[in-house]
């Protein structure tokens, strides 16, 4: 249960999935299109993943593959993985894909995610180690959360290396204090 407190895991499970209800459910107001507080079998609702997952396991609803994993995205990633804007489609692309894969019965999801990640990772690593701050900000907007974490880790280790080489002051103001405001007298 190492993921229980993990913020990225919680947010990845909040992604919306489209489900079709197999059984009727009473007393819940999640279906915006029904007038009463119940859901009819056969109705399509968009639910967050944590709810859809449990309902799918108990066979109350069936999950459909989310649009961010559809054929169009696969073709784009196959053509040139580094340029595809994954953040606008799904900022937790890889984590979400890993969770969805066993439920939707998509067998080549794993290899597809892996190849996309490998291609994009090359770009991420190259940019992180070479680019100055301003230049790379354009390409950062297309990265998922996981890739952004990797990028920032690489950047900070590059900065630490440069600092070590130049030999700057060892002590610095703690980063947590942020910008100081002058106290108003």
């Amino acid at each position, binding site marked *: 249960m190492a993921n229980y407190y993990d913020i990225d895991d919680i947010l990845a499970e909040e992604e919306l999935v489209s489900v079709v209800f197999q*059984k009727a459910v*009473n*007393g819940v107001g*999640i279906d915006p299109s029904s007038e009463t507080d119940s859901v009819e079998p056969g109705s399509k609702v968009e639910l967050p993943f944590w*709810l859809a997952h449990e309902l799918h396991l108990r066979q109350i609803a069936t999950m459909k593959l989310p649009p961010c994993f559809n054929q169009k995205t696969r073709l784009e990633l196959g053509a040139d993985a580094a340029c595809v804007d994954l953040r606008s489609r799904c900022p937790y692309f890889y984590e979400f894909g890993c969770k969805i894969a066993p439920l939707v019965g998509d067998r080549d999801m794993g290899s597809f995610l892996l190849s996309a990640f490998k291609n994009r990772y090359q770009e991420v690593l190259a940019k992180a180690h070479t680019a100055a701050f301003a230049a790379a900000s354009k390409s950062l907007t297309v990265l998922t959360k996981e890739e952004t974490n990797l990028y920032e880790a690489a950047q900070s280790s590059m900065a630490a290396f440069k600092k070590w080489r130049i030999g700057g*002051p060892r002590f610095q*103001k703690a980063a947590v204090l942020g910008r100081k405001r002058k106290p108003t007298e």
Partner: protein
Amino acid sequence: MYGRKACQLVKELATGEKEQLTPFNSDQLDQVIAECSQHYSELQALIRNMQEKGLDVQTTKNEDHFGALVHHLSLVRNKRCLMSYLYKRAEILRNLIWKVGTMLPQEIQEKLSHFEEEYFKKHSASLKSYMSRIDLDLAVDMVPPKDPYIQVRVLDDIGEGIVLSDDKTANFTCHSMHFLKRTDAEQFISRGLMEELTG
């Protein structure tokens, strides 16, 4: 409903900068707790419904059961989001002690809730008693310095008559330069009140 407000709390932590605390969002917390009570009362209503119809609550799987399941799952989800929010903030506080020392600057103190302040005080007190028992100050720099004394310039008015570790009093007015022992200067530098002069 259904975990959305709780998720906003978690998003607050995710979108802020790393290791920076936002002011404690007690309003949102209260709203999530109110939602939880609502989920619970609806769950109880559905269970009562099933009991009135004379069905066995444990085994029958009818619509009321599924509705109760959805409410239960929302409760568990809210709990997870709230726990994660509190846990992450506590983690940031624990790391703060090593960076800033046991006295919190005002700008951080006003962002904490009452319980977080208590937690911080107790944690730093137990850390202090541990360090005094093993007779070692763990909060200093891990790398042994080449020179035990460093030159510093004071950035902010700290005041006069600060007692240093070798029982001498020093007068730290703004922009004055001093030649201090490294361990003394460290705590002032990490709070941004002094800067080290190199070269």
